[in-house]
């Protein structure tokens, strides 16, 4: 395992409003980390800071031992890709959308090469939407659109993949399929993933580590079995939870009533 990203004494937020304070963690190649926190805890803000779109208020983010600020936007996009909740775009085909992921790798005055087209085709196949590749992106269903965005992130060939609620607005089958697809694509290449997920059970299923955030600070960071405790969940959400274990998985649900 190689250390890919280090957050050191990182504080994130917007001008005059710090949202997260003094965050420390290290992410290694191949990690699948889910960020678990209540609404408004600053998960998206953290992802934006890691992607270099938002400047940190304090502290450092290092990628491959080099500070984030020493990378150009193009260089960062070669290392980090982002999949958000729902991207809308009119007038582009699926194939054109996915090809945009090659942008950071294509030099100016050079069109996309054969290799770029091969990668795009492979990614479209990997997310299982080959039959829609010449369709307009805007005419797809939400689940299909999300697959396109994942294919776009895959052709960026990142070392780190950021997922900001990638399964929001999706039905339960799509939620599961999308995450399984991502996992399948990133594991062989040892791509690290940081995912913001609201569904703790999905996070337990897919993550190697969980990052729990409460009141602007890290509540716990570690292996799912170790950090998902009744006590931690109570602190996070102010609710009593029950933990269930069976041969296949661990899962949680809130306790109802008395």
């Amino acid at each position: 395992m190689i250390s890919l990203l280090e957050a050191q004494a990182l504080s994130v937020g917007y001008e005059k409003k710090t949202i997260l304070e003094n965050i420390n963690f290290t992410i290694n190649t191949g990690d699948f980390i889910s960020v678990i926190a209540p609404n408004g805890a600053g998960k998206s803000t953290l992802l934006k800071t890691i992607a270099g779109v938002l400047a940190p208020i304090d502290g450092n983010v290092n990628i491959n031992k080099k500070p984030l600020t020493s990378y150009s936007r193009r260089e960062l996009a070669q290392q980090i890709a982002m999949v958000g909740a729902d991207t809308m775009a009119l007038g582009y085909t699926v194939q054109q959308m996915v090809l945009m992921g090659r942008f950071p790798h294509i030099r100016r005055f050079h069109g996309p090469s054969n290799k770029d087209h091969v990668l795009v085709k492979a990614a479209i196949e990997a997310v299982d939407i080959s039959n829609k590749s010449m369709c307009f992106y805007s005419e797809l269903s939400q689940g299909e659109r999300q697959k396109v965005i994942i294919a776009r992130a895959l052709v960026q060939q990142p070392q780190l993949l950021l997922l900001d609620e990638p399964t929001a607005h999706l039905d339960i089958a799509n939620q599961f399929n999308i995450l399984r697809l991502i996992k399948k694509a990133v594991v062989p290449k040892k791509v690290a993933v940081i995912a913001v997920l609201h569904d703790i059970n999905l996070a337990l299923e897919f993550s190697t580590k969980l990052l729990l955030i409460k009141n602007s600070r890290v509540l716990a960071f570690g292996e799912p079995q170790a950090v998902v405790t009744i006590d931690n969940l109570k602190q996070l959400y102010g609710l009593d939870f029950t933990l269930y274990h069976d041969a296949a998985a661990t899962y949680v649900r809130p306790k109802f009533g008395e």
Partner: protein
Amino acid sequence: MKLLTTKPVLLMGSSAILLVITAIYLLTIGTADISAPTVFSIITHKIFGMPNPDIPMPEQIIVWNFRWQRVALAMLVGSCLAVSGTCFQTMFKNPLADPFILGVSSGAALGAAIAIVSGHTELMIILAFIGAILSLSIVYFLGQSFLYPSDQQLLLAGVACGAMLNAMLSALMAIHSQQMQMIVFWLMGSLTNYVDSLKPLVAIVGICIIIVMVYASDLDIIALGDEDAKFLGVDVNKVKPLLLIVTSLMTGACVSVSGIIGFIGLIIPHIVRKIAGSSHIVLLPLSAIFGAIFLLAADGLTRTVPQLASLPVGVVTALFGGPFFFYILRVAGRRVS
């Protein structure tokens, strides 16, 4: 649904041919009867140095020194406005954005009006250009100095600045009412203003369009939103200001020669998007060609229909562009939604 644009090259080629035909047709219109093949060989001779079979000098002078001037200006202005409009609509993610939205036209108009009322009509073009660039700079730096600079703020700054400059223009016209007619005519847009040489304008528009073309794939991605664009590696904070300045510069240069020709920068980008999709490497050159054809056609109407002869071309573009635009929206609105 399958995309209609599997052959963008074919589309570009056929519209380029249409442009050439339209231009040659317009060069044959006039009191002197000069045939299309004659016109063609004069133009190819003058531009590309092709061999010139004996064509009498008067015909050469009529075509090259008089008619070509107007046709070339129409093509330059039309393509400049259409390309700028495409760029603005993408960058502001606003279908109403046009090349004049940052106050360029009002600045140019005020500059031209100052030249007219001070009796220095020979300075009209240069003052209009200075006015355009000044107002653009003011809007741009005002927009940047807001607490939270954003595209919306920049648009608002443009609208506010435009309103102020228009008020000054009205004041100027009210005070110097004897020159009002000349100012109003300039405002309506015309291709008949006398220009010593089109070369500087060709250079400015040419270079600016090439710069915009270089950033075609950046524009594709910027259309998805600034944040997505950053994630995909587009340096939005550098590309956008550059393109804003480049497009406004060429618009300022065109406006200072032709006056304010409305509607092209608004409707041509929409029409081309409906035909060719949203990929800017196709969209931008096609906008340039369509813009040129549209303005040539509008100018052609004023020259072939006697009842329209006294109208400025800017009036014709809006008069006929409006209904055409409604039609396009009605037909294409059903397809892409």
